[in-house]
């Protein structure tokens, strides 16, 4: 296998491996953070001595290092792990197979997109080796703090620039592929929901990322050319007036950032919904309930996601008129999300569910995403957001969406499509262990966060807020969260072991082990170069499970 390949399957696997490594890295950051929160000023066990004197003194984490870890945890997880995992890996590998195409529309651009992603990720993480360490102004990089931060912030911006180029190239490729390369007979309304989700996601990447690119360029100019795009007049730093021309606006950065970052939330969640839809249809042996409504909702989410960004900014003093507008749009966008989740839930009704490992992850996704979504409603209304803003409640809310939400869906996808990639299944005992351990571990971390946040604990405190008396009733929760993190880490080792073991020793299976209907299961496992011996022809919708008067309980899309 060539390292620089233009085959979408190779590129998909490159994305997968790279994003898994970044996922692990982001998790290691959080292990360190949770140790510090649970046992502040106690030496970090085992690895404390290897983290560098400027970061860790006598095994104890320094505040500067803590802020780097929390900024880089968010950055790595969102931009380098989950999005490339969901879009780069799953989208690249599966979309051409699901639509019966020989490859992506622009194979060389596809390769370029992966290598830009890798370069961007390495540049960002290389910040840890610069003087002053990695970016430390939060994953949102708010100025003026970020404008004045150490060199690591420049690495963050350059890395972000490369990542945005990567996702630009990738999203153009994905949209063109879905529009142009569908097999004969595969009309848009016969596309699997997964493909629809990838299509809407790609439009979000295409149109929402450029404003952050613009913002990154402006912040780079502030840092390197001495401009004041985000620096207001009269700024005083460490007791001295800052010598800049001033006249800039820190709020401008927030608008540009959240104009990307709210659609980004749907970039994180839509591909996950796509995977869950495929797995649930297959596990229940029924057509998806409300496929058309789900597609419409996905499109509506995509459109509305551009109109809600300032609900992250209720505390910037933007006034009640603006707040009212963004509250209304935020409440509106929750409707299509509920339509999709309700459709998936109703799809279970009357089904004879096969409780395989992918199905477990997909089923657990529903209540976990539900908790994440419902805890978001108080944050979408200014009156309740103001006291909750910047507390652990917010952190708990969005982690319920992204961790036992999106990540569970991605794990479901791994277990579900592993046989297609390798011709073998993954071990289900290790898989069950991975599932139950992750479910317990994640809830053990994120549920206490909601309680801490309601008690008012600020999310950015190096000692977890021990210097404030009001935190006393909830401070004991931190040690439980530490042990939940350890559990979560331990069961991820089961997952890694399962992946490696199953690659070599997993049970060999047929090309369609789940009795699935979509096109990727009609070719060999792994599929050959150019995917199909001859272009498939599509005769029916994507979820023809348990049809009337048929011998089998499923009809593949390619069956006349």
């Amino acid at each position, binding site marked *: 296998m060539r390292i620089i390949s233009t085959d979408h399957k190779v590129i998909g696997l490159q994305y997968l491996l790279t994003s898994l490594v970044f996922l692990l890295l982001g998790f290691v950051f959080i292990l360190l953070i949770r140790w510090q929160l649970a046992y502040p000023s106690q030496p970090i066990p085992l690895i404390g001595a290897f983290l560098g004197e400027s970061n860790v003194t006598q095994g104890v984490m320094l505040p500067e290092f803590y802020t780097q870890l929390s900024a880089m945890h968010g950055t790595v997880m969102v931009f380098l792990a989950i999005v490339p995992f969901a879009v780069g890996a799953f989208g690249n590998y599966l979309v051409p197979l699901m639509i019966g*195409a*020989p*490859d*992506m*529309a*622009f*194979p060389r651009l596809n390769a370029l997109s992966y290598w830009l992603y890798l370069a961007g990720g390495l540049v960002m993480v290389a910040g840890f080796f610069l003087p002053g360490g990695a970016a430390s102004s939060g994953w949102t990089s708010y100025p003026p703090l970020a404008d004045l931060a150490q060199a690591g912030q420049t690495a963050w911006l350059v890395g972000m620039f490369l990542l945005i180029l990567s996702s*630009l190239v990738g*999203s*153009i*490729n994905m*949209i*063109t592929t879905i*529009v*142009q*390369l569908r097999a004969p007979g595969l009309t848009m309304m016969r596309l699997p929901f997964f493909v629809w989700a990838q299509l809407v996601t790609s439009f979000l990447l*295409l*149109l*929402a*990322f*450029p*404003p952050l*690119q*613009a*913002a990154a*360029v*402006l912040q780079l*100019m502030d840092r390197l*050319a*001495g*401009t*004041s*795009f985000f620096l207001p007049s009269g700024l005083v730093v460490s007791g001295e007036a800052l010598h*800049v*021309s001033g*006249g*800039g*606006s820190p709020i*401008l950065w927030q608008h*540009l950032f959240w*104009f990307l970052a709210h659609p980004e939330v749907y970039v994180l969640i839509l591909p996950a919904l796509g995977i869950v839809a495929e797995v649930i249809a297959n596990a229940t042996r029924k057509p998806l309930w409300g496929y058309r409504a789900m597609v419409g909702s996905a499109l509506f989410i995509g459109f509305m996601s551009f109109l809600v960004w300032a609900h992250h900014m209720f505390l910037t003093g933007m006034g009640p008129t603006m707040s009212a507008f963004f509250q209304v749009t935020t409440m509106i966008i929750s409707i299509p999300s509920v339509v999709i989740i309700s459709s998936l839930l109703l799809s279970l009704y009357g089904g004879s569910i096969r409780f395989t490992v992918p199905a477990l992850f997909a089923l657990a996704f529903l209540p976990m995403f539900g908790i994440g979504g419902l805890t978001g409603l108080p944050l979408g209304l200014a009156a309740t957001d103001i006291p909750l803003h910047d507390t652990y409640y917010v952190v708990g809310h969005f982690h319920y969406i992204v961790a036992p939400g999106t990540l569970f869906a991605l794990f479901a996808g791994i277990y579900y499509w592993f046989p297609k990639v390798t011709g073998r299944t993954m071990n289900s005992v290790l898989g069950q262990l991975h599932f139950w351990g992750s479910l317990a571990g994640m809830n053990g971390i994120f549920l206490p966060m909601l309680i801490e946040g309601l008690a008012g604990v600020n999310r950015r405190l190096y000692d977890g807020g021990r210097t404030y008396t009001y935190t006393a009733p909830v401070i004991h929760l931190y040690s439980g969260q530490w042990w939940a993190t350890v559990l979560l880490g331990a069961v991820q080792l089961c997952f890694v072991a399962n992946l490696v073991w199953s690659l070599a020793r997993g049970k060999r299976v047929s090309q369609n082990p789940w009795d699935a209907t979509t096109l990727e299961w009609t070719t060999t496992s792994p599929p050959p170069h150019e995917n199909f011996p001859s272009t498939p022809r599509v005769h029916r919708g994507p979820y023809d499970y348990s049809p009337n008067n048929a011998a089998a309980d499923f009809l593949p899309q390619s069956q006349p």
Partner: protein
Amino acid sequence: MIPYTIDRRADSGVNNVTLGIWLFIASEVMLFGALFSSYALLRVSAPAWPHGRDVLGVWFGVGNTVVLSVMTALVLRARAVPPAVGRQFLAVGTVLAAVFLVIKGLEWRGEIAEGLVPSLNTFFAMYFTLTGLHALHVACGIVANVWVLLGASRVPDGMTSGRIRAVALYWTFVDVVWLTLFLLFYLT
């Protein structure tokens, strides 16, 4: 070969290259849209904003407007003529794009020598950032043109004309951005 690289697909009415370049332009609109919005926001909140015609060399701007517009017209024309002629149009256009960069470079050099640098005020910060980003687009366009010209002898004519249509659309966008910049910085 990937289907519909050259031929149009019946239900979408376009080939892959055309759809791809339109999507790219859409993304570019969002990029410059964000930058122009930033310009508007910072300008309306600024206590004072210099008259561009007083501090910038208007004739540099006029010269570059002429050069880039002629260049764009040539590339647009290259779509309609036989491929061999079209390549010559594209080649001349590429030279003009390089002339644009030379003029822009001379203009910047003079301004920096006079102490008119990005850190001076928000006007010059915006001016250098936006014209710099635009010049980067011109430079990338030159690379794309050269790639089309070099590839013309190796790929079918149908593919080359598809590529020429794509770069023509790109240059039109680059020209429109320049006209907007010319208006925002030199004439107001």
